[in-house]
């Protein structure tokens, strides 16, 4: 005679309820349920669960849902036969549908929908094309920007006074530093005037760098500079700025403006006007 543990009993409870157990096992399960109150409760409540689930009264199809279903199908049926396939708006893509319902797979195990890995759904050719396009655009933009970078030599001068020199066809060789530090000149911004008589105005940051460089310097005139920057229309976006004869770049950020030139600047200001 078979004697079951509670685990053995639970492992067979489902088949027992379905009547799938043969004689000896069936008897053993019944015997265990009789002797073990805990398992008897589990058997009873599981049977009641299944009875509840199988209650034909539950999950009834509401009449209005049935009406809508028939109306929708009537519309699909009214369409000509080939159009019926296209008349089903929520129907999934035909490829997917035929893969599931195709003759070859009919009644074969339905394909289990799987959660796809994050790389699985990628359209690789498109992804590579996009990467290529981004690289080409990036390369093109940086080449174009590089092509607009120019190095210029000339005189540092403010935009306010540059107009006068250009009008006179003169070079600002003797244009004094003190003039460049006048409020109106500072406010107008700086630029470089080349020997060809063309004035390149600096961008705002470039002008500030030029002002700092001027303040830190004790040159009085012939303020020749070498400037490297990017040309954007009439504005030169300054990348490096140094005095033409100085060795190497002047690090205008690191050098604090000296107080002495300011005193002299005040003396100049009273001496004459630009």
């Amino acid at each position, binding site marked *: 005679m078979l004697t079951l543990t509670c685990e053995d009993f639970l492992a067979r409870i489902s088949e027992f309820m379905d009547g799938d157990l043969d004689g000896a096992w069936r008897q053993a399960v019944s015997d265990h349920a009789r002797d073990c109150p805990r398992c008897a409760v589990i058997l009873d409540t599981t049977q009641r669960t299944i009875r509840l689930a199988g209650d034909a009264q*539950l999950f009834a199809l509401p009449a209005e849902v049935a009406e809508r279903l028939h109306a929708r199908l009537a519309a699909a049926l009214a369409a000509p036969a080939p159009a019926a396939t296209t008349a089903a708006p929520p129907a*999934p893509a035909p490829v997917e*549908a035929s893969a599931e319902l195709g003759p070859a797979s009919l009644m074969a195990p339905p394909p289990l929908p799987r959660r796809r890995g994050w790389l699985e759904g990628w359209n690789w050719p498109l992804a590579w094309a996009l990467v290529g396009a981004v690289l080409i655009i990036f390369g093109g933009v940086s080449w174009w920007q590089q092509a607009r970078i120019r190095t210029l030599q000339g005189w540092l001068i403010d935009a306010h006074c540059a107009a006068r020199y250009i009008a006179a066809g003169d070079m600002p060789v003797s244009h004094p530093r003190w003039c460049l530090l006048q409020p109106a000149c500072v406010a107008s911004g700086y630029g470089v005037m080349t020997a060809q008589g063309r004035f390149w105005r600096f961008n705002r940051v470039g002008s500030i760098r030029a002002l700092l460089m001027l303040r830190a310097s004790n040159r009085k005139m012939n303020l020749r500079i070498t400037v490297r920057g990017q040309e954007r229309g009439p504005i030169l976006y300054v990348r490096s700025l140094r005095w033409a004869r100085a060795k190497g770049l002047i690090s205008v950020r690191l050098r604090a403006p000296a107080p002495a030139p300011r005193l002299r600047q005040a003396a100049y200001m009273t001496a004459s006007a630009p």
Partner: protein
Amino acid sequence: MSRESAVPVGAPAGDDGDNALVAAIRAGERGRFQELVARHQRAVYRTALAILRSPEDAEDITQETFLRALEHLDQFRGEARFSTWLTQICVNTSRMALRKRHPELWTSLDEPVTTDDGALPREAVEWREDPEQAYSRQEQEELLLNALAGLHPSYREVVVLRDIRQLSTEETAQALGLTVANVKTRLLRARLQLRDRLAARLHAAADARDLASSAPASPKDDRPC
């Protein structure tokens, strides 16, 4: 190929006239598809509702299932019962909808199911009241749907087809593309889990009801302790 040779061993004995209807529809009487629908609409709706839990989703799935059945009716070769074929479409459509609309309820069927093998069910307490008597039909549906929603989708499908739809184990296996042994294993776990979840809800509901009935009848009696 003769009709007999197309029917494998163990395939449907009684199709209740479904195959004749399908043949008529294929022969051109497309209007009779509605008859076929009327026969199976309830079963399809029941399946979709039990899997998806929401009546709106179940309605969509029911419509979609029949539209797809109509579209692919040529591919039904009578190797299984029409109802099984329809169930297969319904389950696949529901799975897709579940994955799309309720990813939180969706767990990959590829993932190994964590089971409580060997562990006894948590509660072995007699139910104080029979849900069939104590609750309205709507409440029973709600209890059952909530309990079902907590099951792993692969368990839910098995218990829905086997116990709610009351298909045979073989038909359930056919509709889900599983072996009979696999269905039995899943069914055992599904039933025990469903029982656990239902028991927990029933006890909670009964406790709430007790509390409500033991509460003071009028606010005047409700003195602070």
